[in-house]
C-alpha cells in the first residue's frame, strides 16, 4: 500500500521486507527494516532504536554536580560531549557564569572531539562502505604513489611505502583474521574505486588510526585523563600554573606548548590526508546521489563553540544556530530551547506512554514511562521480532520535532545552515568542493554530501582549535589564570526549585539536556540526543525521520548485500549499533549485517 507522508515522502510497504535485531534494551542497538520493490529499490524504511531512556531514572535524586559523570557513561563514542552538555544545563539552572578561560578550554575539548571523531568516523567507520580492502591488494604501488602525489604533498607517498603497507594487509588478510574487515562485501559492484585509490585509502586508514591517539592527548591535558576526562560545574577542573613545573594536576607551559604542537599536526593531517582522500573518493561516486534524507528540507542546529563565555545569543555561536524548514534556505529560523512550543517529543510510535499521545511534550515536562507493546501486524514474538508493525509502536526512541517538523541534525545540517546564512567560513569551502568536483548545489543533499560536510567540519574544527588555544594563551599572558567559579558550589546557595537547559553540537548533531532541580537534587533529567532526531520513528501526523527518509528510493546493487543501506546509515555517524537483516518475502532471512 502506498501512502504519502506530510513531509513529502511516498512509502510503499508492499514489496519484500528487510528486518531487525532482537529488540532488547541493551545499550545502543538499532534495527532497520526496509521494503524493496521488484527492482531492489527501497520503497519503505522503518528505523527502530533502543536508547538509554533509563537515564532519567538513574539521575533522579542525584547531586546535579555529578550528573556529567553519569551522562558521560551512557555512550562509548561521545563521552565528553554529554558531560559538557550536562554541566551547561546545571549551570543554566543555577545561574553560574564561567570564567573566560573555562569557555576557551571547553571549546578546545569539544573541537578536539569534533576533529578526532570526524577523522575516525571517516576512515574507520565509514570509508569501507566506499573502499574495497580486497581490491587494494591488486593495486600497483607505483601508480598509487603517483595518485597520492597528485592530490597532496603529504610526505608518506613513495612506491616502497605503499608496497610495504600492501604486504602488511595481504599477510593480515591471508592469516584469516579479517578483524575490522570481516563484515565487508568485497567485490560488490557498488564499489567504484580503482585499485590504487583503494590502497591509498586503506593506507591512510592505518595512518589515521595511529594519528588519532595524538589528538586526544589534548583531552588528557585539560581533562586530567582520557578516556572519560573530568568536567566541573562552574568551569574546568584544571588549574593553570605557567610558572609551575610539577604542581599536581596544574597545566604548565610545557603542557600548553604540547597542546599547541598537537593542534598544528592535527591541522596538517586533516588538510593533507583526510580532505584530499575525501575528494578523491567522492570523485568516483558523483553519480551515487542518494540518501539526502531531510537535509534539503528540514535541518536543525542548536549552535555551539561560543566565542565569549556566558553569552547564549545566536551571534556568539561559531557553529551556527538555526532551523530551516520546507526547503526554504532563504529563511533561517531562530531556535529557542526553552520555548514549550518548539521542541516537543512524541511517543505515539515509541515504546513509552503519555497521558495523551496525540500531543508532544517539551523535555522539561518530559515523561519516560516504558510501554513495550507490538502492533497487530507484527511477525514473530516480543523477544524475537521478525518484522515490525510500524503502524503501531515500534521504537525505543521518542520522536522529537521542531514546531511539528521532523528535522535532520549533524554536520550536514550545520553546514547547510552556515551556507544558508551566508557565513563565509561555511559557504566558501562548500562552494570550493562543489566547484572542484563540478557538482551542483543539490549534490550537497545526499549521503556523500553528509560525508563531505563532516570532512569540512573536521578541518574547520582543527583550525578553530588553533584560534582558541591562541586566545587562551593570550588571556593567560594578560594575567588571567582563572578557570573555575565556585561561588555557587554549595547547595545552600541554590534556589529550592529551578530548571535549566544545556546544549552542544556533538559530532553527530544537536544534543540537549534539560534538568529540573528541587531541594538540591535532580528531579527530572531528559536528554534529546542527535540520533533521537535522525533515527526517530514516525509522529502522530505521519512525518518520517531522517534515517527513514534517507533510505527511500535507494537501489541496492545486490539485495542480499545491503551495502548501500550501510553507506547511508553510516553517513549519519549513528550513535548506536545497528543491525539489519535482509529477509525474503516468505520471511526467510537472507542476510544479517552488523552496522558499526
Amino acid at each position, binding site marked *: 500500500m502506498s501512502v504519502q507522508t506530510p513531509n513529502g515522502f511516498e512509502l510503499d510497504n508492499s514489496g519484500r521486507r528487510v528486518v531487525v535485531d532482537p529488540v532488547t*534494551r541493551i545499550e545502543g542497538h538499532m534495527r532497520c527494516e526496509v521494503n524493496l520493490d521488484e527492482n531492489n529499490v527501497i520503497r519503505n524504511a522503518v528505523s527502530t532504536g533502543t536508547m538509554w531512556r533509563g537515564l532519567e531514572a538513574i539521575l533522579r535524586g542525584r547531586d546535579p554536580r555529578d550528573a556529567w*559523570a553519569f551522562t558521560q557513561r551512557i555512550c562509548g563514542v561521545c563521552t565528553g560531549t554529554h558531560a559538557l552538555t550536562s554541566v551547561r544545563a546545571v549551570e543554566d539552572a543555577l545561574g553560574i557564569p564561567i570564567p573566560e578561560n573555562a569557555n576557551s578550554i571547553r571549546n578546545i575539548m569539544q573541537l578536539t572531539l569534533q576533529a578526532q571523531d570526524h577523522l575516525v568516523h571517516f576512515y574507520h567507520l565509514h570509508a569501507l562502505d566506499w573502499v574495497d580492502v580486497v581490491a587494494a591488494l591488486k593495486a600497483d604501488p607505483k601508480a598509487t604513489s603517483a595518485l597520492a602525489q597528485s592530490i597532496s604533498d603529504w610526505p608518506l607517498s613513495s612506491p616502497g611505502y605503499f608496497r610495504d603497507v600492501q604486504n602488511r594487509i595481504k599477510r593480515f588478510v591471508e592469516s584469516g583474521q579479517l578483524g575490522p574487515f570481516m563484515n565487508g562485501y568485497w567485490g560488490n559492484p557498488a564499489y567504484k574505486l580503482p585499485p590504487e585509490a583503494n590502497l591509498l585509502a586503506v593506507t591512510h586508514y592505518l595512518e589515521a588510526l595511529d594519528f588519532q591517539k595524538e589528538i586526544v592527548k589534548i583531552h588528557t591535558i585539560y581533562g586530567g585523563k582520557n*578516556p572519560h576526562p573530568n568536567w566541573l560545574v562552574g568551569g574546568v577542573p584544571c588549574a593553570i600554573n605557567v610558572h609551575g613545573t610539577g604542581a599536581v594536576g596544574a597545566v604548565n607551559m610545557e603542557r600548553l606548548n604540547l597542546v599547541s604542537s598537537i593542534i598544528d599536526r592535527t591541522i596538517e593531517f586533516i588538510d593533507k590526508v583526510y580532505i584530499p582522500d575525501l575528494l578523491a573518493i567522492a570523485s568516483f561516486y558523483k553519480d551515487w546521489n542518494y540518501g539526502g534524507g531531510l537535509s534539503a528540507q528540514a535541518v536543525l542546529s542548536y549552535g555551539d563553540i561560543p566565542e565569549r563565555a556566558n553569552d547564549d545569543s545566536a551571534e556568539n555561536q561559531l557553529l551556527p544556530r538555526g532551523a530551516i524548514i520546507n526547503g526554504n534556505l532563504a529563511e533561517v529560523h531562530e531556535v529557542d530551547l526553552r520555548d514549550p512550543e518548539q521542541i516537543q517529543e512524541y511517543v505515539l510510535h515509541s515504546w513509552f506512554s503519555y497521558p495523551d499521545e496525540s500531543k508532544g511534550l517539551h523535555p522539561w515536562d518530559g515523561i519516560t514511562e516504558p510501554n513495550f507493546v507490538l502492533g497487530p501486524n507484527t511477525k514473530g514474538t516480543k523477544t524475537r521480532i521478525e518484522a515490525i508493525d510500524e503502524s503501531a509502536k515500534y521504537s525505543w526512541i521518542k520522536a522529537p520535532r521542531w514546531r511539528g517538523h521532523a528535522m535532520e541534525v549533524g554536520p550536514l545540517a550545520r553546514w547547510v545552515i552556515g551556507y544558508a546564512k551566508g557565513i563565509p567560513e561555511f559557504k566558501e569551502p562548500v562552494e570550493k568542493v562543489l566547484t572542484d568536483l563540478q557538482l551542483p548545489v543539490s549534490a550537497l543533499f545526499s549521503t556523500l554530501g553528509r560525508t563531505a560536510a563532516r570532512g569540512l567540519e573536521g578541518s574547520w574544527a582543527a583550525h578553530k582549535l588553533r584560534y582558541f588555544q591562541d586566545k587562551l594563551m593570550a588571556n593567560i599572558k594578560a594575567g588571567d589564570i582563572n578557570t573555575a567559579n565556585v561561588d555557587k558550589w554549595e547547595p545552600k546557595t541554590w534556589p529550592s526549585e529551578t530548571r535549566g537547559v544545556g546544549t552542544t553540537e556533538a559530532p553527530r548533531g544537536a544534543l540537549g539536556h534539560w534538568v529540573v532541580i528541587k531541594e538540591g537534587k535532580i528531579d527530572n533529567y531528559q536528554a534529546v540526543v542527535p540520533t533521537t532526531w535522525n533515527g526517530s520513528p514516525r509522529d502522530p501526523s505521519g512525518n518520517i525521520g531522517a534515517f527513514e527518509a534517507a533510505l527511500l528510493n535507494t537501489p541496492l546493487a545486490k539485495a542480499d548485500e545491503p551495502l548501500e543501506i550501510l553507506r547511508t546509515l553510516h553517513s549519519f555517524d549513528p550513535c548506536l549499533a545497528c543491525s539489519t537483516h535482509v529477509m525474503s518475502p516468505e520471511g526467510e532471512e537472507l542476510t544479517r549485517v552488523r552496522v558499526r
Partner: protein
Amino acid sequence: MSQETHKVLLLGIGNILWADEGFGVRVVETIATRYRLGPEVRLLDGGTQGLYLVDQVRWADVLVVFDAVDYGLHPGTLKLVEGEEVPRFMGVKKMSLHQTGFQEVLALADLLGDAPRHLLLVGVQPVELEDFGGGLRPEVQDQIEPAIEAARGYLDRFAVQWTRTEGALERHLDIPHQSLSIAHYLPT
C-alpha cells in the same frame, strides 16, 4: 623472563551503568584503591571506548582484560582464557557493543604491528545485564577478589610487584570519577 621489564596493562571494559556489565571496570577500580603497582603497570577503566583503546593496547607487552563475557556458563562463574583464544571468546556472543569492538581493537593492534605478546582474559558470566542504573549482582560482585587473585597469579611470571596501600587511592591513568565509585554509585 622475570629479568625483563614488561609493560603491563590491566584493562577493565564494560558499562558501569548496566549492572553486571560493569564487572571489568569495578575490578580495575578495586585494584586501584588497594594496591600500588610498578611504574610499568597501567590500570585503565576502558569503559565502552572500543577503537579508542587501540593505543593503550599497543603500548602493552602484557594485557590483562577484565570483562563480563557470555561463556554460556552458570551465572557468576569466573573463567580465564589465555593467548590466541582471547579474541575468539570476546566475539562469539556479543552482549554489548564494546565486545565486538574489543575484538577489533586486538586485530587493529596486530595490523599495526603492536599486538601484546601476552594476553589474559578474566571474564565473569553475568547474572543480569538489563538493569539500566543497577550495580553488580552479589554473585558477580563476589568474583572481584578471585579475579584479582587470578590476575596476580598470571602476572607473577612477569615479576609484577603488588604493594598494599591502606585507604589512599593511587592516582592511576583512569578509574571512574568518585561519584561513580563503587561506594557512591549504589544505592540511589
